[in-house]
């Protein structure tokens, strides 16, 4: 960037001339001499331009993959690689938007002669996600501070924070998916609980399925067939449009972050149940992981929940073409899939989504983090509107878990009690 005048010394010549003029008119040689200092400064402010910050910067993280809630140190090493003395150098690091600096500002003011090096250290508290530092802002001034120049320096550093999935986090999440859809009993004999049929023993059949009563009676080996249960197919859908990034407290955890937390808990609970679970987002940067089970799938989902841009911890730019998105989503959605839809419901869009999914015959369960407050008049209106939306959903036969400050299983338990009434 070009340098510009800070106008810091504006008026110094005028003031000096005034003092000197009074000195001349009153023949006070002292004042005229004092004016020399003023003239000296006036000349000093014209000396030199703000230098271009020709520096090399290295950014080092204390831990490149910390756990959520931990802190990590960031160390900047700044070296003047140019030939000019940067007498007034101010460095401001571009901390990623979702991270918060908790110790020391991410800034340093220094003065570097050619070849000199300095370091700056600060600490950030880490939340889930892939966080990238891109640029630093460098501000240089000439010694008098009359001119200033900004230089942007690109240094890319990435921190990945992948929260672990708690396997079988809570059994009380059972009620979320239903035994009546997806988890259907089939007419296929095999493993299971309910008796289906018997057949002749084939070598390799497990011992616990041999009909021992029959063996005792007749002496022949036969194998029991049980009615096979098919696992439920569930898609966990997160509303991560710009509108969904709301929070009761400005720098608190927002609705999307809480939705992702909910998805992580539900995912691990369902997957350990043997269900097939997939992940999707309603967002401009779409995320789609088809429902599956298994360790590889779990690892893939864990990675996506942590770092997928569609689930970023702070709002990203981009517009969502809702109809296009919905059509693509419904095409991909397996016919028997249930949908668990996480959204704060702060606008009407998610209502249409939920209702249309319901109309297509999918069982829809809404989990809605409540970010409304009664702090301001607008928030009160928003709270009523949301209450009305949830009632509309319930009126449409969609199951709603209204999730306030309590732990998710508590909210789910309260909601399932209501459904079973």
């Amino acid at each position, binding site marked *: 960037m070009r340098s510009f005048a800070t106008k810091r010394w504006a008026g110094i010549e005028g003031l000096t001339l005034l003092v000197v003029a009074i000195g001349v008119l009153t023949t006070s040689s002292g004042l*005229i001499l004092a004016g020399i200092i003023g003239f000296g400064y006036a000349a000093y402010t014209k000396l030199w331009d703000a230098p271009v910050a020709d520096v090399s910067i290295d950014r080092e993280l204390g831990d490149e993959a910390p756990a959520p809630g931990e802190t990590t140190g960031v160390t900047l090493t700044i070296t003047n690689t140019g030939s000019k003395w940067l007498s*007034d*150098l101010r460095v401001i690091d571009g901390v990623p938007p979702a991270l918060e600096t908790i110790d020391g500002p991410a800034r340093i003011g220094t003065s570097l002669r050619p070849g000199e090096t300095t370091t700056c250290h600060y600490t950030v508290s880490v939340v889930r996600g892939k966080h990238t530092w891109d640029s630093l802002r460098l501000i240089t001034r000439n010694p008098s501070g009359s001119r200033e120049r900004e230089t942007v320096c690109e240094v890319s550093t990435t921190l990945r924070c992948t929260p672990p999935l708690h396997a079988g986090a809570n059994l009380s999440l059972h009620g979320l998916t239903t035994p009546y859809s997806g988890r259907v009993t089939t007419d296929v004999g095999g493993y299971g609980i309910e008796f289906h049929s018997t057949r002749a023993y084939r070598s390799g059949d497990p011992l616990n399925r041999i009909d021992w009563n029959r063996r005792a009676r007749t002496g022949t080996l036969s194998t029991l067939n049980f009615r096979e249960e098919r696992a439920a197919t569930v898609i966990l859908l997160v509303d991560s449009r710009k509108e969904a990034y709301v929070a009761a407290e400005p720098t608190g955890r927002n609705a999307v972050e809480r939705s992702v937390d909910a998805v992580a808990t539900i995912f691990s609970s369902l997957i350990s149940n043997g269900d097939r679970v997939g992940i999707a987002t309603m967002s401009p940067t779409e995320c789609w992981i088809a429902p599956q089970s298994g360790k590889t799938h779990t690892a893939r989902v864990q990675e996506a929940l942590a770092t997928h841009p569609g689930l970023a911890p702070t709002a990203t730019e981009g517009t969502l073409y809702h109809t296009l998105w919905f059509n693509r989503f419904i095409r991909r959605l397996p016919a028997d899939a249930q949908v668990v839809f996480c959204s704060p419901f702060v606008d009407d869009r998610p209502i249409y989504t939920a209702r249309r999914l319901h109309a297509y015959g999918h069982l829809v369960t809404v989990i809605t983090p409540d970010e409304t407050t009664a702090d301001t008049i607008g928030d009160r209106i928003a709270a009523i509107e949301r209450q009305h939306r949830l009632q509309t959903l319930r009126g449409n036969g969609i199951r709603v878990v209204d999730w306030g400050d309590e732990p998710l299983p508590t909210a789910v338990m309260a909601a399932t009690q209501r459904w079973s009434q």
Partner: protein
Amino acid sequence: MSGETTSRGQTRQETINRKPAAASSYAAIFLSLLAAAVLVLGSLVGATIAAVGALITTVSVYRGRQKGVTLGALMTTGAIVAAGVLGAPPAPLLGATGCAILAWDIGSSAIDIGQTLGHNADTARLEAVRAAFSLFVTSTTATVGYAIYVLAGDGQPMTALVLLILGAVIIIAVYRQ
């Protein structure tokens, strides 16, 4: 990420502390007081006004008000002019002027550093280098001024000075364009 803990994290509302840089603030306050003290040698009236200027500077630096620091410096300038008009000798006037301009420069930088980098950032080296530059300019110009006074002790100082000033006024007029 588990649902067991409270779902909303704690929030930290603190922005960075934008109070002026400490070392420079103290230096500026000290220098503004020193200007008043030096002026005692020239004129008591001037010293009194300068003391008010120092007070304004102190309060403004403490509260981080750029305009207040300028007002304090203008007050001290007024005090110097008053002392000069009342016939104060050149030495205390030169001293007070040097202190006043240094107080303004360093005080204003302290506020500026506080605003751009924050009170808690590491700015010691920046402040030291800036102050050193200002001190160098002040002492050099004050020395030149005093040297002229001593050299011209018995000649026609006014004639020479007025020519010098005329030249300075012309050059400033040219440069400002």
